[in-house]
């Protein structure tokens, strides 16, 4: 369960960091390195197939032709079929919806709570800051997997429950980043001197402080969507998330694992889908972070 750590620590340097490419920008497209462009395109495709999976495959993800079970990848079935004869490619396409949506739902929970608490502690007095920081410590003491185990024990398995668990586990990550950003911006000259131009405290907060704090959030969110997807599929793999026959990538991987010896494709392609999606979000996230850091 390798969820990415607090982004306050610069998460990843990634290939082609600006420091290195002294050569003229033949390796970039409109200012974006190729890696980031590919990642952006992949994510766009991912979003597309989440909304309209049927566009890419006509088959029904839930039922297949039983006589066609365990067919290796070929012209008919690009990713082969599973034990019930269902087309693995179709199920991977329909599976995107679950991994992405649960990942984004978890992200929404982490971001909203994280930002609120982060700003509150960053702006608050010593005691409020201390209190919220302790809250972050308590929350981060429960890694996503274990928190999910607790939630599922009480509320039962299911999509929303694991999204809730991963969301809660992600709050400290965002909270700490927003808090350190708030502390930084709060002391910057353009905030402390705003009073000279007749800005009220509230006006300064809204015009200068918050925008400069929140500008970092989408960047960190992009980087962490990847770790949310890994967490989601991990929990489904353990059987805590959506139940069969849902075509969720983690569930498909767990099913594929039992027939690994005779049908490698049932296990390999869902895993590949998870990895490439996570890779895409990480690469895009890093690029945004470098552009953002370049700006600050």
């Amino acid at each position, binding site marked *: *369960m*390798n*969820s*990415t*750590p*607090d982004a306050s*620590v*610069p*998460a*990843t*340097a*990634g*290939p*082609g*960091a600006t*420091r*290195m490419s002294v050569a003229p920008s033949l390796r970039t497209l409109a200012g974006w390195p190729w890696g980031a462009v590919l990642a952006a395109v992949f994510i766009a495709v991912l979003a597309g197939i989440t909304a309209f999976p049927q566009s890419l495959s006509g088959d029904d993800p839930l039922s297949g032709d039983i006589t066609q079970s365990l067919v290796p990848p070929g012209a008919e079935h690009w990713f082969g079929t599973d034990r019930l004869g269902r087309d693995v490619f179709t199920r991977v396409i329909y599976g995107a919806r679950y991994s992405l949506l649960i990942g984004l739902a978890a992200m929404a929970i982490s971001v909203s709570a994280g930002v609120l608490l982060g700003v509150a502690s960053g702006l608050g007095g010593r005691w409020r800051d201390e209190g919220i920081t*302790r*809250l972050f*410590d*308590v929350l*981060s*003491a*429960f*890694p*996503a*997997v*274990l*928190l999910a*185990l*607790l939630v*599922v*024990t*009480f509320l039962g398995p299911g999509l929303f429950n694991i999204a809730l668990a991963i969301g809660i586990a992600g709050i400290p990550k965002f909270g700490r980043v927003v808090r350190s950003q708030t502390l930084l911006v709060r002391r910057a000259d353009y905030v402390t001197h705003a009073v000279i131009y007749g800005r009220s405290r509230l006006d300064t907060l809204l015009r200068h402080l918050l925008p400069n704090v929140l500008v970092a959030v989408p960047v960190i969110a992009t980087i962490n969507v*990847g770790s949310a997807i*890994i967490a989601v*599929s*991990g929990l489904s*793999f*353990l*059987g*805590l998330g959506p139940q069969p026959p849902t075509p969720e990538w*983690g569930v498909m*991987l767990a099913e*594929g*694992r039992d027939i*690994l*010896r005779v049908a*490698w494709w049932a*296990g390999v392609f869902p*895993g*590949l889908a*998870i*990895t*490439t999606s*996570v*890779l895409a979000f*990480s*690469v895009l996230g*890093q690029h945004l972070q470098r552009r953002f850091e370049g700006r600050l």
Partner: protein
Amino acid sequence: MPSPHPVLKAALLRLGSALLVMWLAASATFVALHALPGRIQDILAGDLELPGLKEAISAEWGLDRSLPEQYLDFIVRIAHGDFGSSYVMRQPVSKIIGSQVLPTVTLALLAGALATLIALTLATLTAGRPGPARRLAATLELGSASVPVFWLGILLLMAFSFRLPWFPVSGDEGWRALVLPTLTLALPTAGILTQVLREAMEKALEQPFVTTVRARGLGELALRLRHVLRHALLPAVTLGGWLVGSLLGGAVITEKVFGRPGLGTVTLNAVLSQDVPVVLAVVLLAAFVYVLVSTALDLLYLAIDPRLQTP
């Protein structure tokens, strides 16, 4: 010598906050338990329909007494490591967990050590050096950080157990049974750790003191090992807490992939059989381990950076 007084003060402060966090974590679970719909006996009994079970539970947890008394009793019991008894397995939770801790801890420690080793060597070798080596390392790290633990496990299983029978598929005998699970758990963590270390090293390499050290005639490797590495350890140390969390979480999954016994398997079965006391105990223990490790690492951070020691 920087007077020991401030370091001691800082250490006590850290330990104090650690205890506070542990106490808060325990209270959080207590509150969560009580916030749930339905009576505590029903929740703790899960779905077991044994005669006299509900009465036994309310007696053991003292549910008839007032809430504060229950709370106090709960905290005291946890402090003594008594997490009550599992009604599904009909034996004390501490016995169940006690017997299963060793394999999980060995796996987590080995994986953590391997990940740190990989991260240190890779970061030291590639930080700041232009050319293909660094770009290749960066891509590898990004790739390994994106691979889900369970998929990596499956791939390794396919390659090294089915195709080439070098390593056993599962079980807990001897070192050979540890190789694949440790690799599975270590690689993704190593990916992220290496990136953080290399990033920190490259930031340190931009500091002016690096030019001074080079002007003294030190080579690149000596510069990295004697000077830059310590600077890179600072952000890496703050990652300690996250590392523990991800190793424990990853262990649960790795044990399922490799069919290894351990806390992961016990917890998973407990969840599937609605054995609340066991799940509660494992999660709380993991939280305590997390707090202790991150506090220890905080103190290490203090020791490394003298700038924090003077008042």
